[in-house]
């Protein structure tokens, strides 16, 4: 299990390959890549800056990964989240989950993304033609995360 918060870009394919190596029990890998869009809420976006809470960020993500491990039999997981200045089409986040079976890999990967969106201390500030603005939290993200509670499937 691995959590990284970094300014640098990542190579999703290399990370997936690294996760796969050396564990012949892996039958399924679900991965998610989040990408900066050039439009948000109808306005063109020239780029964004991701602020975070150093220290708490890593702890929060590790806690989310630990929860996923309690819920699903996953063999390995990786979360990389970028911070700092990003441009449209830049990658923001990578989540990879390896499991024996695909259902658990998909569920844990989507759970990790939903919880990252609502539990990990990151904040986006977009640059638009009208100036910079902090992105508001979305009710749809809270709803997505709420699907996973209460515990039990």
């Amino acid at each position: 299990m691995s959590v990284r918060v970094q300014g640098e870009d990542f190579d999703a394919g290399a990370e997936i390959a690294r996760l796969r190596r050396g564990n012949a029990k892996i039958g399924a890998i679900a991965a998610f890549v989040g990408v900066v869009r050039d439009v948000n809420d109808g306005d063109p976006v020239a780029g964004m800056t991701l602020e975070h809470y150093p220290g708490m960020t890593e702890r929060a993500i590790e806690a989310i990964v630990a929860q996923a491990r309690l819920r699903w039999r996953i063999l390995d997981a990786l979360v990389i989240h970028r911070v700092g200045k990003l441009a449209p089409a830049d990658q923001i986040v990578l989540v990879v989950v390896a499991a024996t079976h695909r259902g658990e890999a998909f569920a844990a990967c989507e759970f990790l993304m939903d919880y990252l969106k609502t539990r990990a201390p990151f904040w986006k500030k977009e640059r638009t033609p009208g100036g910079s603005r902090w992105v508001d939290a979305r009710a749809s993200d809270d709803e997505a995360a709420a699907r996973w509670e209460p515990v039990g499937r």
Partner: protein
Amino acid sequence: MNVRLLYFARLREAFGIQAEEVALPEEIRDVGALSRWLQGRGGAWRAELAPGRAYRVAVDQEMAGASTRLHEGAEVAVFPPVTGG
């Protein structure tokens, strides 16, 4: 009680401050009381932390609620709802 306060994102900009060390009056013992004490500063503090405004508080890097107790040397962070991923 001495605590370290951190502010992030929109709140950091609204307050014009990123971090401060404060000596709290003795009666301020939990997150709810701290929030009301900060609102007492008026201006952006009152506006941003008023009841009904959406913000979050973490104590020692764990999400906290109004009843979460503070302690000497605590790291208390105040920030808007998160928007990562």
